[in-house]
C-alpha cells in the first residue's frame, strides 16, 4: 500500500499523544520485521515463530507489564488517559498477529481493575506484578459468567450464569467451580481472573495465580483461530486465596466487560489494518476480465470501498470508546451502567464491522483469501474467534438486553 495506513483514517489526531505515536511506531517496526517480512515462514512454523515474536515484543519493546505501575516494575502506563495508548499498541501488534494482540488485550483487561488509577491497589500490584515484569512470557486468563445448564439455578450476573463461587472464612477465601470456559489462555495462564459469586450471590472478582493448588486444566481446546493462544477448561477445587485477591469493589465486574470490549476492539481493528494493506496491494496487481486491474472495476472498487468503510467505522468507534475511558468526566465512568452497556454495544459493532470487512475482502480475493499463504484467512479465523468469545449466551442478545435495561428501564428480562 503506497500510503501510510494511519493517514487513511479520520479521527481526532490529538487523541493520540506524541508518546503514543512513538511507542506505536516501534511496535510497527517490530511487526514489519518480526512477522510481516517473514510471513511465509511465520505461517509454516507458527508455534515457534509466534513465541519468538512475542518475546521480542514483550521484552525488547516492553509490552508485557506495560501498564503495571512503575514501582511494581512495570512501565507505568496505568492511568485512564493511557487507554488510547493501549489500543494504539494493540492495533499495531494485531496488524501483524491478532493472536499476540489478544494475549496482551487479556493481560491489560485484567490489570485494568487493580493496576490503573484511580482504582490502583498497591498491595495487589506488589503481589502480582512481579509475575509479569520478569523476562518470561506470561499469559492471563479471564473467566466471565456465561451459560448455565438446564435444570440448575445459578446466581446471575445480568442474566449470565456465575458458575464460580467464592466462600470467605477468616482471612481466607476459597474458590470453586467446574468446567469453566475462559475467554482465552486457560491452558498456560500465570494468572486467572474470575468473576464469581459470593455467599450473597453478589458478583466479585477473584485473581488466582496459575500455580495455586486445586486448579485443574483440562485438555487444550482446538479452535477456529488464535492458534498460539492455548485455551482449556478449568476446574477450581477449593482454591485458597488471600482475601485481598478477591475484589469486592462495587461494579468491578462491569469494568472488566467494558475494558475487554475496548481492548479487543483494538485487536480486531488492528487485524483489519493488516487486511487493508493486503487487499490494497492485491487489487492493484490482479487483472480481471482479461484487461483491467481489479481496483479499476467499479463493482470490485465498490467492494473495496465497503472494506475500507467497515474498518474506518470500527477505527472511529474504537477511538471514541478509548477516549471515553480516558475522560470519564466527559463521557461517564467505565463502571457506570451506561458505559457498561455502550462499551459492549460498540465493542460488538466493531467486531461486526471487522468480520464484515474481512468477509468482503475474501469475496474479492476468492481462493487467495482462503488459502493460508494469502495471510487473510488467519485474520478471519482470529477475529471470528474473538467475536464469538465476546458474545454472551445467545449471541448478541445479552448485550442488547443490557442496553434495554439501561436506556428503556426494561425489567425482568
Amino acid at each position, binding site marked *: 500500500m503506497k500510503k501510510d495506513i494511519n493517514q487513511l483514517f479520520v479521527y481526532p489526531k490529538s487523541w493520540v499523544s506524541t508518546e503514543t505515536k512513538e511507542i506505536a511506531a516501534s511496535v510497527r517496526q517490530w511487526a514489519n520485521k518480526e512477522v510481516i517480512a517473514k510471513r511465509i515462514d511465520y505461517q509454516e512454523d507458527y508455534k515457534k515463530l509466534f513465541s519468538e515474536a512475542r518475546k521480542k515484543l514483550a521484552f525488547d519493546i516492553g509490552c508485557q507489564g506495560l501498564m503495571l505501575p512503575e514501582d511494581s516494575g512495570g512501565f507505568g502506563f496505568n492511568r485512564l488517559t493511557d487507554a488510547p495508548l493501549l489500543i494504539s499498541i494493540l492495533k499495531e501488534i494485531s496488524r501483524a498477529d491478532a493472536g499476540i494482540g489478544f494475549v496482551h488485550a487479556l493481560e491489560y483487561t485484567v490489570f485494568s481493575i487493580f493496576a490503573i488509577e484511580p482504582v490502583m491497589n498497591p498491595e495487589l500490584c506488589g503481589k502480582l506484578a512481579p509475575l509479569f515484569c520478569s523476562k518470561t512470557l506470561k499469559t492471563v486468563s479471564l473467566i466471565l459468567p456465561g451459560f448455565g445448564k438446564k435444570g440448575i439455578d445459578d446466581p446471575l450476573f445480568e442474566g449470565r450464569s456465575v458458575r464460580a463461587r467464592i466462600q470467605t472464612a477468616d482471612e481466607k477465601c476459597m474458590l470453586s467451580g467446574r468446567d469453566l470456559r475462559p475467554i482465552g489462555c486457560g491452558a498456560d495462564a500465570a494468572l486467572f481472573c474470575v468473576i464469581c459469586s459470593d455467599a450473597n450471590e453478589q458478583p466479585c472478582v477473584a485473581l488466582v495465580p496459575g500455580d495455586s493448588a486445586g486448579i485443574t486444566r483440562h485438555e487444550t481446546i482446538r479452535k477456529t483461530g488464535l492458534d498460539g493462544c492455548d485455551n482449556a477448561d478449568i476446574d477450581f477445587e477449593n482454591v485458597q486465596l488471600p482475601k485481598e485477591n478477591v475484589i469486592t469493589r462495587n461494579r468491578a465486574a462491569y469494568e472488566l466487560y467494558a475494558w475487554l470490549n475496548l481492548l479487543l476492539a483494538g485487536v480486531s481493528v488492528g487485524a483489519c489494518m493488516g487486511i487493508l494493506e493486503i487487499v490494497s496491494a492485491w487489487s492493484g496487481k490482479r487483472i480481471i476480465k482479461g484487461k483491467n486491474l481489479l481496483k479499476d472495476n467499479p463493482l470490485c472498487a465498490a467492494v473495496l470501498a465497503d472494506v475500507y468503510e467497515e474498518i474506518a467505522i470500527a477505527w472511529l468507534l474504537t477511538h471514541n470508546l478509548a477516549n471515553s475511558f480516558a475522560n470519564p468526566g466527559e463521557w461517564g465512568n467505565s463502571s457506570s451502567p451506561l458505559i457498561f452497556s455502550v462499551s459492549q454495544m460498540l465493542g460488538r459493532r466493531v467486531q461486526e464491522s471487522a468480520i464484515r470487512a474481512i468477509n468482503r475482502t475474501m469475496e474479492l480475493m476468492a481462493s487467495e483469501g*482462503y488459502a493460508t499463504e494469502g495471510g487473510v484467512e488467519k485474520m478471519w479465523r482470529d477475529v471470528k474467534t474473538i467475536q464469538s468469545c465476546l458474545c454472551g449466551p*445467545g449471541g448478541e442478545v445479552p448485550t442488547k438486553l443490557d442496553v434495554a435495561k439501561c436506556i428503556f428501564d426494561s425489567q425482568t428480562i
Partner: protein
Amino acid sequence: MKSFDEFSRPLDRISPMEKPFRAVIRNWVEEEVMPYRREYDEDWKEHRFIEPAMEKLCVGLGIQKCLFPKAFGGWGLGESDSLAALTYALCEEMARGDSALSLANLASLWSLTTFLVKPNINRRLAKEIAPMFCDTDKLCICCQAMTEPQGGADIENMGLLKGRTLRTTARLEGDVWVINGHKLWPTNSGGTANLFGVPCTTNPGSSDPDDFAYMMVPAHFKGVTQSEPYHKAGMAADKNGEIWFDNVRVPSWYRIHGPGKDADVFKQLISFGLLGSVGFAMGAMINVYEILYDFVSGNTYANKPLKENDAIAGVIGRIAGDIDISRILSYELVRMIDSREKPFGNPLSSEETIAKARNIKDFVSDRTVENIGKAMDVMGVYGSDRIMDVEKHYRDVKMIQLWLGGKQLCQAEAARYFFNCETL
C-alpha cells in the same frame, strides 16, 4: 418439528429413489464421517482419515460409477430424470458430515457430466473411460481443471468473455491433441485425481465458441504434473494445487464432443456446479441446526433454556427460517435442472437458467455463511471450539461463497439477465 427432515421439500415430486438413497448415504455419514471428521483438519495433506471414507463411498457403495451407462457397468444416472434431485440429495447428506468430502465427490462426478449426461452422452468416450471407474476396486477420482493462474474466475464468465482469456492450448497433430498449460486450485488436484477434465483453446485469444475445447486427460499420461496441495482455512478433504500440462498427448476422441458443443456443454457444467454448491451449503446448515437445537435446549440464559428466551428465540428462529427458505430455493434449482428436457424447462446453457441458478447459489451461500457465523455467536465461547463441530462448517462454507466466480460474478450474471445489460 420432529426432525430436520421436516425442512421444506417438494414431497409431491420427489423420486421414490430419493428416500432409500438418502438413507444409505446418511448411514455412511454416521459410520464413516462423523466419528472422524474432527481429525480432518490435520489430515489435509495426508488424507489418512479422508481417503478411506471416500473409498467406502465411491467404491464400496459404488458412487463413482453412478453416471456411467448401465451397458458399461454404471448405474445409468446420467440418463435419469431425477439426476439433479439425487445429486442434490447426495451432496446435502454428505455435507451434513463434511462439505469438503461432499465437494470432492461431486467434483469427481462433475467433469464426467460433460459426456455422461443426457442429451450429451458420448458413448465412445464413456466406454473408453468406464473401466477406470466401474471395473475396479480402487478409488478413482476425476478433477475438473478449470481455473488458470491469471484472472481467477474469468473462465467461468463465459457469458462475457467466451473463453477469450484461456491460455491452456490444444493443438491437433494427426489423431492426437497436444495440450499445454497451467491450471490452479481445482478441487481434487494436489495429487488426488486420476483423470482431468480440461477446458482449453484451440486458438488462443479467440472468443469463437468453436475454438473452445474440453479434453479428458488421464493423470498418468506423460507431461502431466501435479503440485502438493495448498493449506487452507478449511475444506481439508478437498485438495487443491497446481497442474501443469507439458505437451501432453491424448487421443483425438478424448475431446468430449467437438467445436461448438464443447462450449455449450461447458456452460451447463456451471449449473451442475451451482447445484452442488447449494447442496453443500444446505447440508452444513442442517447439521448446524441439529447441533444448535441441542445447544439451545440444554444451555441457559437467566436460568431458562436459551430457546425459551424470546429474544434468543428470535435469533435462532431466523436461522432456522433461513434454512427452510434456502431449502425451498435449492429444490427450485433441482427442478430447473431436472426439467431441462421437459415442456416447461429451459436448456442448462440458457441465460435464464444460468442467471437464476447463480442467483439462488449466491443467495443460499450468503445465508449459510451468515447463519453459521450467527450460530457460532449464539454459542459464545463454545462457538469456536472444534468439539462443537459448528466452527468447522463455518470455515468450510466460506469457500462455497467464493468459488465459481464468487459473489461478484453471480451479481453480474443476474444483472445481465434481469436488466439486459450489454457491457458487463
